[in-house]
């Protein structure tokens, strides 16, 4: 059973923007799939359709063999946005516990799980802080802990590290891989950084824009587990180049090289 199965999905917004056209994509259990493409090509739209946050104009999505709506009601996925979207009147611990509260977990079980999550994202001791007392990177880790707290089979991440500096981003990349390996989950990850996509993924989905389509699927055969050394592996550069070329073939990718995250060390 595929973790996510996207069949013939098209999306046209009111006003006539064709965001997605005929998307077909199968994502297997335990995969780490990155969606990459120029800004405005419909990555977020596709992710939100998978999460049943919006509906496709045509076509269908199943998650773990169920219609997307059913999967949402069954809490089959956790989602992480570009902004942490923490509720600032709640402490860090109570933010992480929010989905557990809604799922009806009792207080003891909640607090036990919150402690585990704080350890997992290395924020032990920050449970009683309020979100605004944390740095951007720490806030995003809270948001990841919240998405993982109820142990969803699928994790949807929409440019979760896009707003962070390069150092923090690389550290959180490594942390995310560790978390993914320790769990049983499948991850669908949106990014516009080539380096990030190649480093993290088992497969990269390259999209092109106007309308958004899948232009190439690139399996990433770098060995697991990945580490700092992976980033210096010649194969890493080959794959990054392949992704970059696919992006340029798709057209509309006018992002300067510096923005791809490859500027350092790529020479």
């Amino acid at each position, binding site marked *: 059973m595929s973790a996510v199965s996207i069949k013939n999905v098209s999306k046209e917004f009111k006003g006539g923007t064709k965001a997605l056209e005929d998307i077909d994509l199968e994502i297997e259990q335990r995969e780490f799939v990155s969606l990459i493409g120029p800004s405005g090509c419909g990555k977020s739209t596709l992710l*939100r359709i998978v*999460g049943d*946050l919006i509906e496709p104009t045509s076509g269908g999505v199943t998650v773990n063999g169920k219609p997307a709506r059913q999967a*949402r*009601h069954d*809490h089959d*996925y*956790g*989602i992480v*946005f570009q*902004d942490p*979207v923490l*509720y*600032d*009147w709640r402490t860090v611990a109570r933010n992480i516990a*929010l*989905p557990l*509260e*809604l*799922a009806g977990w009792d207080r003891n079980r909640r607090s036990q799980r919150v402690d585990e999550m704080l350890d997992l994202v*290395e924020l032990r*001791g*920050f449970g009683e*802080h*309020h*979100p*605004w*007392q*944390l*740095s951007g990177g*720490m806030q995003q880790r809270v948001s990841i802990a919240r998405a993982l707290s109820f142990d969803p089979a699928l994790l949807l991440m929409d440019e979760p590290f896009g707003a962070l500096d390069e150092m923090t981003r690389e*550290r959180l990349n490594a942390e995310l891989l560790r978390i993914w390996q320790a769990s049983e989950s499948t991850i669908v990850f949106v990014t516009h950084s080539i380096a990030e996509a190649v480093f993290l993924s088992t497969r990269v989905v390259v999209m092109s824009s106007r309308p958004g389509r899948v232009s190439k699927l690139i399996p990433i055969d770098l060995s697991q587990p990945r580490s700092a050394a992976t980033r210096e592996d010649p194969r890493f550069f080959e794959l990054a180049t392949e992704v970059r070329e696919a992006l340029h073939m798709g057209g509309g990718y006018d992002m300067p090289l510096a923005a791809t995250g490859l500027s350092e060390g790529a020479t």
Partner: protein
Amino acid sequence: MASVAVERPLAEDAPVKRARRRGLLLLAVLVLLWGFWEGFRALGIHYGWQRPFTVDATSMPHIHDMIWALFQRPNPEAPLLIVTLLKAAAFTGREAALGFAMGATGGFAIGALLAHSRMLQRGLLPYVVASQTIPILAIAPMVVIWLASVQVTPWVSVAVIAAYLTFFPVVIATIRGLQAADHRAVELMRSYAANRWTVLWKLRFPMALPFLFSALRISATASIVGAIIGEQPSSIAGGLGGAILNFAQYYSFQPQNLWATNIIAAALGIAFFLVVVAAEKLVVRRAPEHVA
């Protein structure tokens, strides 16, 4: 992993220092006001100012005379003025508190209803607004007569009049506040398949609290005004409204008594306001940019 140092005030005596600074500031303002009043009065009398009003001992009694009056008996059989006024303030305060509670609850309920449905909002909000254009002086006698006909105690009728003056800001703030949650925060709730009630209590309501408290600050003082005005048609003599009417009649002989009453009424308003501010401090835990 290196953790980022979290800034927080460390000095233990910081609150004490802050309180002392605030106290000094308050004192400075009071002294300034006193100086302004007495200075204006002295100049006005010396030069015989007629504008903006004729300045004399009746229009502007000395501030120390107002304070002094608090500790005198208005007539030989009466208790000290301050005793009478504090009793009156307690009476009016009770009316205002009940009115405030009713107005705040009612305003929130109406606001929540209107925020819930755009159609209701379009249909009903104009009437809520219109209700505020009818002067309280026109409404008050009707409320008193209606409620008296169903055996409601007069002071409760006054509370209803105070409620009429308090609910409106709460309605507007509730509508605004309940719709203030951003799109992402709502989407997060949707991802958990949360129902409308859960979204209301776990997201929209906490989001609305700073808006609500801004409105409650206005309502707290408005409830006192409502109670004072409402006492007149209810023929209640024991409250501040009664005291104001009474001393207004004798103004030309003893202007300081009316001014003393005003001071007590203002103090009651400030007390109400401060209670709301204190409640807000206890209840609202928001990022600094969301706190008024």
